[in-house]
């Protein structure tokens, strides 16, 4: 599973990254988490409010920090 957290690097973005990390550990799946902070890359995903979470190319949420249950739902749902 390939998880991308899109965000230029403010407090909210790193919080989103932490939550995804914790969710991956809790779900016990193997996944790569990549932080994307380059504006050009973020824009190419079609996302313009950050933080955003993309899992295997699918945009899961934009403009907010996900909650852990949410994150778990996405990871297990695939």
């Amino acid at each position, binding site marked *: 599973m390939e998880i991308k957290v899109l*965000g*230029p*690097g*403010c407090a*909210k*973005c790193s919080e989103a990254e932490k939550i995804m990390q914790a969710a991956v550990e809790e779900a016990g799946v193997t996944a790569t988490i990549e932080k994307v902070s380059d*504006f*050009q890359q*973020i*824009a*190419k*995903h*079609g*996302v*313009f*409010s*950050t933080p955003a979470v993309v899992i295997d*190319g*699918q*945009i*899961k*949420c*934009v*403009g907010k920090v996900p*909650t852990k*249950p*949410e994150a778990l*739902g*996405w990871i297990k*749902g*695939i």
Partner: protein
Amino acid sequence: MQPITSLKQHTPATPQSTPPLTSAAKIKYLLTGLAGIGLWFALYLQLHRLAELIAFSLLGMTPGTHLGEAMLFFFYDTPKVLMLLTLIVFGVGILRSFFTPERTRKILAGKRESVGNVLAALLGIVTPFCSCSAVPLFIGFVTAGVPLGVTFSFLISAPMVNEIALVLLYGLLGWKVAALYMGTGLLIAIVAGWIIGRLQMEHYIEDWVRELHINGVDIPDEQLSWTDRFNHGKTAVRDIVGRVWVYVVAGIAVGAGIHGFVPEGFMAQIMGKGAWWSVPAAVVIGIPMYSNAAGIVPVVQALLEKGAALGTVLAFMMSVIALSLPEMVILRKVLKPQLIAVFIGVVGTGIMLVGYLFNIII
């Protein structure tokens, strides 16, 4: 990028994907809400009495002394501002759950300039927006065909006219100053955006942004229930009040000190109406300073009280909030220096005019 049509199945619209409310639950929410507001008002109206009780009876201060007045000021203003902040942030949190940057973009795309500028400035108030997403948002707006000037109206209004600034101005300086700030803030956002649009500076956007082809990714609207919206409000209170209360308390403590100890008219020489150069100076000093409204308003109040002119002080506050160096550095990634210079020039001039205007009429 594949279209994300299947998003809804995977992601429940909301964390807990709450079922629609039953009418009994609705009534429960309504009653809880009313009881909460009633309790809030009952407490709010007693604050002055409570402050007197703490300052004079509990701490044994004498009314009329420097220290006593400073204490009274602190124990009255701190809970007052924090209570106002909690109520308004909660309300605005619910209001914002109706708006997303995606929805705002859809509304603004393809709008004519003048109407677009007004709409963008107004939507800037209610669209949830974190200052660090200014650049992605800029790209998103411009590539969706929102005119450059309209995008700027949004980017100017969103940080400047916000609920925290308005609550603090209302709580510490009264509704007239709050209304003036909101009105002139919106006006600057609308006019400055319109002027930037007239100057046709599209080619001063960085080339890679203009060459960017973004496939129509449609991010579906979330379906929110009222429970979710209430949770939005609660999260906003936890986030915002949790973050700014320190600044509020510190600001009011400084304000209380000035209130009790600095002589009347102390600031009149430097920031009074007579000093014409103080308005541009306030704007220039404000640019490198970066503070949020919560930290700046209590200081503003103290300055005003000691003889600073309202226009000068408002200009200072607007400059600190709307023109910040860190934001310029971030915007440089998508804008060429010429456009940033024009942005600072136009907005700075607008703020200066507002400052002079108030110094003349008030």
